[in-house]
């Protein structure tokens, strides 16, 4: 997804001289050519995220279209107050792109994980939140954010994710059904979509059918009512704290709209991650790998 986003940024930078990329001393190699081709549309200001966000706001106040690219914790958490006051409160069209969503960078340690960013981002009105599941969604999310003239936060894992969509022209403001089953539905976002194929087959062996939908845009005021009507049981799965992410968003939605459906949220336990291991290891540890999820779903359906 990182390369897809980089490609889109290069394309837009050619078309629109107002685009200005602030790459916060991250992404080795990603911007090598970009900075040669677009010297007036690029800065690596060093390791100073509070300043970078204010700086981006200042550029946007003058009509530039700044993009701040960094490892996700340093995009949203380190400069939280700058994102809140300088960008969102002032409602400026700045795009924040955070890499390493969830526990992508494991075993980097908790400082480099973002397992609470959706909860945090949701506290800021005006901010659109995107969590694409594949390069096609990532491209669409970026296009949407660029056109929106609003503050945007796009969280992506890293590079090399497979395309899950065959149709390139998807509407990212709506949940995207990527596998049609019945009775049950599982919503996912970001890279953990790579577990769903196995989840489907584990469940199939047990005679359970499930629909899988991605939710590329988490801040949408989308009417979930219609899609939920078709299913008796609803599940959410995310590489984020179980409490505070999309599962919580959906629960609130159901509560506010008097939809009486039982939702089971799967995510990382709300605790600081001291366990050491790579992403797949930690997914297993927290019970959000395909096998554990399939077993949990079967338990829920008992």
């Amino acid at each position: 997804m990182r390369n897809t986003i980089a490609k889109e940024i290069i394309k837009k930078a050619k078309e629109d001289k107002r685009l200005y990329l602030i790459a916060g001393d991250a992404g080795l190699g990603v911007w090598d050519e970009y900075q040669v081709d677009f010297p007036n549309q690029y800065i690596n200001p060093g390791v100073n995220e509070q300043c970078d966000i204010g700086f981006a706001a200042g550029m946007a106040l003058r009509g530039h279209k700044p993009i701040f690219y960094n490892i996700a914790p340093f995009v949203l958490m380190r400069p939280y107050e700058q994102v809140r006051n300088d960008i969102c409160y002032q409602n400026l069209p700045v795009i924040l792109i955070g890499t390493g969503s969830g526990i992508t960078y494991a075993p980097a340690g908790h400082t480099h994980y973002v397992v609470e960013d959706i909860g945090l981002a949701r506290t800021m009105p005006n901010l659109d939140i995107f969590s694409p599941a594949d390069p096609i969604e990532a491209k669409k999310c970026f296009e949407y954010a660029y056109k929106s003239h609003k503050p945007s936060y796009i969280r992506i894992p890293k590079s090399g994710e497979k395309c899950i969509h065959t149709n390139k022209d998807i509407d990212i403001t709506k949940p995207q059904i990527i596998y049609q089953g019945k009775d049950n539905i599982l919503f996912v976002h970001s890279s953990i979509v790579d577990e769903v194929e196995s989840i489907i087959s584990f469940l199939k062996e047990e005679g359970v059918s499930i629909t899988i939908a991605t939710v590329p845009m988490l801040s949408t005021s989308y009417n979930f009512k219609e899609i939920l009507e078709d299913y008796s049981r609803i599940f959410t799965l995310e590489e984020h704290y179980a409490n505070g992410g999309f599962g919580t968003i959906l629960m609130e939605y159901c509560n506010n709209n008097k939809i009486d459906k039982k939702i089971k949220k799967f995510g990382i336990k709300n605790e600081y991650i001291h366990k050491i291991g790579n992403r797949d290891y930690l997914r297993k540890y927290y019970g959000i790998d395909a096998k554990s999820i399939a077993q949990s779903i079967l338990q829920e359906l008992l």
Partner: protein
Amino acid sequence: MTLDKVSKDIRRTIIKMANLSKSPHVGSALSCTDILTTLYFKVMNITKPINDDRDYFLLSKAHSAMALYATFLQKDFMTQKQIDGYYQNDGTLPAHTDRDTSDFVEISAGSLGHGLPIAVGIANSIKIAQESNKVYVLMGDGEMQEGSIWEAAMLAPKLKLDNLMVFIDHNNLQGYGRATELVSFYPIKDKWESFGWEVYEIDGHDHEVIEKVAKLESKRPKVIICKTIKGKGVSFMEDQLIWHYYIVTDEVKEKALRELI
């Protein structure tokens, strides 16, 4: 009208606003009044209606917003009605700036240490567009304890922002005492110089000196350390910590206004 008379009128408005609203920070507003007066009346190119050729003024120490609003009244950028709605229910102006309230309020601010990074962004945008607008920032001396100030201080010289000018309202009285007694930001001049800025130290109440230094050409970003007195212009408020918070009662108002004729 002389500039002395203008700044006196602005101070009178501040006292009346503080009294009507029963809001704090009167000392902070009086401290920077002469800087605002000089910049808006002698230095900056900001006219009504606001236009793209204007200079930018960012009040980073936004708790002094009363001084900004009072200056706007004097410049006819705001109406008396807007001023009267300061700090009121269903009002017009908050205690810390919200840029939605007026075209002349460039940034929404209030949390310290935000103005300078934003100003660096604006100044950089102007440079890229090869335009000639200038960017002026007014910050408090206590703000120098914020890390974000030094992040921006490091970045501005790298970008060769000769269109950026920072005024530090150096009254050495922050929320709970003197910086020298809390966490000292001294030496100020050496710090900024070592970061690559052109530094001046002046009397922050001397209109002629403020104007002269503000108009000096520089190839580097410029910082002007303005030695000021908190509460300046009202003898019993001068250099008194309590006027960071104390409320201007009717009695205080009358007493203060008698000194501002």
